[in-house]
């Protein structure tokens, strides 16, 4: 696939930058075209994180995942737009303009990895990398009708992923099939001595037994994932997905995840807290935007440069995080959220003693209209089913499971499957069981079939 094609096809602002043919070696990903989210550093081109703060920033090194893809023969096609510093659920908060959903250009693709999702959904490339801090891969994958995988925390190196919330961030994949997910994971997963949080244990083989079904599969369905908070079409699609699994021999187990509702609140303490610390590095001195206004001292230079360089959502989260970490509020907000984080982990452990995988919708609604969600809290509620995965550090995948026909145009619905720590291969096998029994993943938007 040539870069000219991508530029012709990109009517959605998915790409910030399209590259000419890049050099790669020969390997298992030869012939595969892969786009990179613009918060993963590449020596080729720029890395801007969708922010004016990093306009024109050229990384002197490649992220570990980028080197591994190149070494495996992948053709890297360019950088995809995202919500600024990966903060958002719609890819409307990108300094280079909103990304449009190829199923309906008046709707958002989800976020924050919206450009990566659209690049794959609109068939501009075979796959893309994204990052998932609270749902930023799985939610846009669901809204764009493709496969989005967030591995167990520590499975893929974060070296070269621009830090948002370091204890929650994980790089993962967007693909048109579970098989492609496994192919890419086979290359990018594994210990990296440049990421002290990457898992040093040898990983199981992602490819070997992908097509072998799991015997005596037990699927946990929490009551908290179903109800009036979801679009009716989503509840219908989930019921149908459960039937599909039953038909291939799975047992459905009722489970209870009562902390589902507080996940978003916990997330919006922990993630901004870490972000406020991580983004303190953007001071306009060594790199990044610097104000051209005259400043009386260094603090004013920082404050003005940051105010000009960051967009509204990033500023909001930095202030939120700074507040919950500040003297007098640390225990009440941040430390308390860390305690709830442990409770959420324990809740998952209890659930996984009864089932192999937890099933539900990826999102409560299908893709919403651009500009529809103006208040931050309603935007944050998009993460209701995905945030706890990151809080606990387990793995999760969104796979296509149907369409809503309620809006005049078909809009994709995502099936969310979560498995426990280091059960990534098992999760992909379970997803593959569904995919090989259904045809939803074969459908592409009208514009790009």
């Amino acid at each position: 696939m040539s870069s000219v094609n991508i530029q012709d096809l990109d009517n959605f602002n998915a790409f910030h930058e399209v590259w000419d043919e890049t050099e790669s070696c020969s390997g298992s990903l030869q012939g595969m075209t892969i786009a990179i989210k613009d918060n993963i550093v590449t020596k080729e081109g720029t890395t801007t994180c969708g922010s004016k703060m990093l306009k024109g920033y050229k990384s002197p090194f490649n992220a570990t995942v980028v080197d591994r893809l190149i070494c495996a023969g992948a053709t890297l096609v360019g950088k995809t737009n995202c919500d600024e510093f990966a903060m958002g659920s719609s890819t409307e908060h990108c300094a280079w303009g909103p990304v449009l959903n190829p199923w309906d250009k008046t709707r958002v693709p989800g976020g924050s990895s919206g450009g990566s999702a659209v690049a794959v959904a609109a068939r501009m490339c075979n796959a893309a990398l994204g990052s998932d801090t609270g749902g930023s891969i799985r939610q846009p994958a669901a809204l764009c009708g493709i496969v989005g995988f967030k591995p167990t925390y520590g499975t893929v190196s974060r070296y070269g992923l621009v830090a948002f919330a370091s204890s929650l961030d994980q790089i993962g994949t967007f693909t048109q099939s579970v098989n492609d997910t496994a192919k890419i994971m086979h290359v990018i997963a594994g210990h990296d001595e440049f990421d002290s949080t990457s898992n040093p244990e040898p990983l199981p083989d992602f490819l070997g037994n992908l097509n072998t079904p799991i015997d005596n599969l037990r699927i946990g369905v929490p009551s908290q994932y179903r109800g009036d908070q979801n679009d009716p079409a989503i509840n219908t699609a989930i019921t149908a997905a459960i039937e599909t699994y039953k038909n291939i021999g799975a047992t459905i187990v009722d489970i209870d995840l009562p902390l589902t509702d507080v996940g978003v609140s916990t997330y919006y303490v922990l993630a901004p807290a870490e972000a406020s610390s991580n983004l303190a590095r953007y001071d306009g001195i060594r790199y990044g935007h610097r104000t051209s206004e005259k400043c009386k001292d260094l603090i004013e230079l920082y404050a003005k440069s940051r105010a000009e360089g960051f967009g509204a959502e990033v500023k909001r989260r930095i202030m939120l995080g700074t507040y919950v970490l500040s003297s007098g509020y640390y225990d009440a907000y941040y430390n308390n959220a860390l305690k709830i984080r442990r409770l959420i982990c324990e809740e998952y452990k209890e659930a996984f003693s009864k089932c192999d995988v937890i099933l539900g919708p990826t999102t409560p609604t299908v893709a919403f209209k651009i500009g529809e969600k103006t208040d931050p809290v309603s935007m944050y509620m998009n993460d209701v089913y995905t945030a706890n995965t990151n809080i606990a550090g387990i793995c999760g995948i969104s796979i296509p499971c149907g369409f809503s026909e309620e809006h005049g145009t078909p809009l994709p619905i995502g099936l969310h499957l979560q498995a426990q720590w280091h059960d990534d291969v098992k999760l992909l096998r379970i997803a593959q069981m569904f995919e090989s029994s259904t045809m939803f993943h074969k459908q592409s938007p009208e514009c790009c079939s």
Partner: protein
Amino acid sequence: MNQIEPDSALSDDAVRHVAHLSRLALNNEEFAGAKKDLTAIFTHIDLLKSIDTSGVEPLDHPTELTNNTRDDTVGDSLTQEQVLANAPATKDVYFDVPKVLGGSA
């Protein structure tokens, strides 16, 4: 039950203080927006008060890894040219910054 005191409406002083700590120079419009949005977000976050966390140890990280360090060996590092390449202002081989002394941190 925990002793969280919700700031159901953040005061102007609280927003000013957090903006200063955040090193963000907000204009009047941004200031008003921040006050409104942060208040709404904290109202939502106050849901966490309903959770009994007594006796629970905080968990700051999902992995059990400790001291996972690489060998302390000399390797390649960036050149001075590479380090300075993205700087907004340089002078000779240095980052160029405005006068530091005289202000208050």
